[in-house]
């Protein structure tokens, strides 16, 4: 293989199903990226959107899905942050169950983290996962490659080998990159790969054995607190390192440009992105101070992006009064002030996207006292419906911004083409019934695990159908559990 050739693009894999031809009649077609909001029909065939609009001629031989009339159609959701637990922890979730959950939540693509066993830290493991996804996954799966060997935070993983295997990004998610020198090496070595570096912010030495966010409620409950500076401290440090590395990169690039203007200056061949590559993405931001720091960095023009989870947008530390182990998440749920700041950051674009941080665990890992419980909540199946019910319906967030932050937003982070409702675009979308009222129950969940922070919640609006690559991956009749 010629390594002088262009770097390989990211590979997103799902099982191939026969392409279907069908028509959705009288649906609301809504895509903020296309400035589209109208009631009409949608015709699907050959894996693509064949036609959309108020007056599509309905030929005889097209299946018309009239029970979906009146529903809303959105571009498919993309989750920048999920744990499909493959390889190694298939008892929690696997590619089939995790992507079934994703399809049930309106997702057409998910990006799987590398904290598996073994970690996805070399080309062969990444290729294996993507090959498996090509056979089993209901929605497109992108795989993250670890930044460090074994995610141990000591030595770089073979990032170019991972790129060749088709990884979407690099991340040691689940663990922070505590060693500043390693982070600097990663920022430098990943130049030219065209892949973003995703950072999990956490000062482990401050977090120690904390269970929830430090504050009023940790003091009341007696659970050991994790201070907000556990996240904002590393963020401030990382931003300084990124400023340094990006400034160095642009100095080198402009020097090379002056001396002959070769395209390869400061970048890998074939990278058409302007600005520093990789850009850096901050995962699951959870405190007000982080939003402030990110906003400031973006105002300077630093190539960084941010993510927030549905649970940090909707729940606070007060909820821990229930001692429900599903609410033990990392980073922990913040104060009401944090929640407001995150919501403000999402609304004004400081935060680019919403990631579920879908983190399934087996019952025996959660049915224990909260101090012993594993970290994480599932989220793929509830993310859109919960945010729609609790933010869009009360008027706290616009529908357009929600759809953006869950579809084109994450695509922007990874440099992937965003799903669109446009003629000729791949048929990657979902159908949502905005009026259906339902309760999140254990039986309503498709994934393998039941540790969902929204279990018991009563929501308005539910996914009815998800179409990926022109075939129906999830279909649910109205009222069906």
């Amino acid at each position, binding site marked *: 293989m010629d390594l002088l050739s262009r770097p390989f693009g990211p590979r997103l894999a799902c099982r191939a199903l026969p392409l279907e031809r069908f028509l959705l009649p009288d649906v609301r077609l809504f895509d903020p990226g296309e400035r589209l909001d109208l009631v009409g029909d949608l015709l699907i065939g050959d894996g693509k959107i064949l036609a959309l609009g108020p007056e599509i001629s309905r030929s005889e031989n097209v299946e018309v899905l009239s029970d979906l009339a009146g529903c809303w159609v959105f571009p498919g959701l993309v989750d920048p942050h999920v744990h499909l637990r493959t390889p190694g922890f298939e008892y929690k979730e696997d590619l089939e169950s995790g992507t079934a959950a994703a399809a049930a939540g309106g997702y057409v693509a998910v990006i799987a983290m590398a904290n598996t066993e073994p970690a996805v830290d070399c080309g062969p493991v990444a290729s294996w996962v993507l090959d498996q996804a090509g056979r089993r996954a209901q929605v497109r799966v992108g795989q993250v490659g670890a930044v460090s060997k074994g995610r141990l935070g000591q030595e770089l993983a073979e990032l170019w*080998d991972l790129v060749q295997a088709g990884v979407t990004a690099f991340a040691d998610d689940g663990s922070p990159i505590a060693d500043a020198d390693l982070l600097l090496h990663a920022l430098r070595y990943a130049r030219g790969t065209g892949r973003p570096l995703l950072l999990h912010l956490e000062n482990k030495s401050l977090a120690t054995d904390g269970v929830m966010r430090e504050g009023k409620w940790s003091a009341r409950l007696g659970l050991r607190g994790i201070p907000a500076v556990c996240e904002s401290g590393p963020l401030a440090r990382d931003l300084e390192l990124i400023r340094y590395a990006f400034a160095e990169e642009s100095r080198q690039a402009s020097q090379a440009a002056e001396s002959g203007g070769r395209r390869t200056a400061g970048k890998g061949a074939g990278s058409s992105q302007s600005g520093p590559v990789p850009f850096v993405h901050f995962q699951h931001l959870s405190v007000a101070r982080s939003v402030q720091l990110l906003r400031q960095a973006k105002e300077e023009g630093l190539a960084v992006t941010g993510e927030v989870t549905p649970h940090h947008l909707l729940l606070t530390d007060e909820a821990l009064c229930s001692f429900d182990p599903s609410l033990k998440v990392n980073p922990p749920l913040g104060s009401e002030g944090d929640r407001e700041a995150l919501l403000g950051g999402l609304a004004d674009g400081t935060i680019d996207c919403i990631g579920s941080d879908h983190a399934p665990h087996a019952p025996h890992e959660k049915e224990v006292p909260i101090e012993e419980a594993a970290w994480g909540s599932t989220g793929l199946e509830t993310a859109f419906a919960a945010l729609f019910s609790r933010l869009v319906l009360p008027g706290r967030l616009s529908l357009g911004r929600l759809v953006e932050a869950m579809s084109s937003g994450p695509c922007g982070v990874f440099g992937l083409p965003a799903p669109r409702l446009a003629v000729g675009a791949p048929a990657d979308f979902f159908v949502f019934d905005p009026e259906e009222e339902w309760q999140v129950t254990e039986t309503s969940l498709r994934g393998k695990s039941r540790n969902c922070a929204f279990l018991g919640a009563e929501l308005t609006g539910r996914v009815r159908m998800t179409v990926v690559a022109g075939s129906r991956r999830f279909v649910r009749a109205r009222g069906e559990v």
Partner: protein
Amino acid sequence: MVMHLLSIDDLTRADIEKLFQLSDGFLEVAARPIKKVPTLRGRTVINLFLEPSTRTQSSFELAAKRLSADVINIKGTTSSVVKGESLKDTILTLESYRPDIIVMRHPQVGASRLATRYTKAAIVNAGDGTGEHPTQCLLDLYTIQRTFGHTEGLKIGMVGDILRSRVARSDLFGFRKMGMDVRLVAPPTLVPPGIEEWGVPIYHDLEALEEVDIIYLLRMQLERAKGRVPPVPSLREYSRRWGLSPAKVKPGQRVMHPGPINRGVELSGDLADDDRSLILHQVESGLAIRMAILLWCLAGALGEESEA
């Protein structure tokens, strides 16, 4: 008065051209059946090598012998340095022998400059840690001069472990002094931070070698990585992405390497043996230019004596 050679900056372009001329003469001597001249008869040269070396040490030893000097070799592993003697004391001890030249290799940057404080001998820096290796630069320039007939305007791409390379640090500035156009090609983690402020273009992809006349490969210096984050994940990935093979060398391009080479890492074994490789010419040039350097160091002193 003796002259030290500590950095390539100690020499002007005219000095370097003068060394080329002297070396031409010594190359001619090397072709004779009797390869010895009496130039430095009665002079004492000490080779103080406190870091492993094969070619530099043997080259200097032979150079001194062919100039009829008396030579002693002191190596790090067998010297009193392993008994805890400081560099200052080692040099003061050697100074008692009243040597004319001390050729010195040391694992720490600036050690040869420090040594000049404690001896009246000329110090020749034969490599100080990750600092400089000026005689390597001179032999490289001389090899290029012999191969191309000139240095002015030639384009050279230096590839690999630039961060930890004293050869790169001397070569970059020496090549530019002689009118060459130098570019660096390396993984971003092996580029010395701040080097771009010296106006040198930096690339991260071998594509940047397409238009150069000479490809200069550097050895991956793993021995200098201890206790730090390794700059590349593996030699395997390094050689796949930044290693050179005959297919990546265009017709007419020449390949150089200061040695020792690591076959299969920075270059493939078949490239090392390819006739586009100048690696063995470099060794040959090294002997001649080191004879010239030893003479240059003492030229002032010799002149004073002949006048007296």
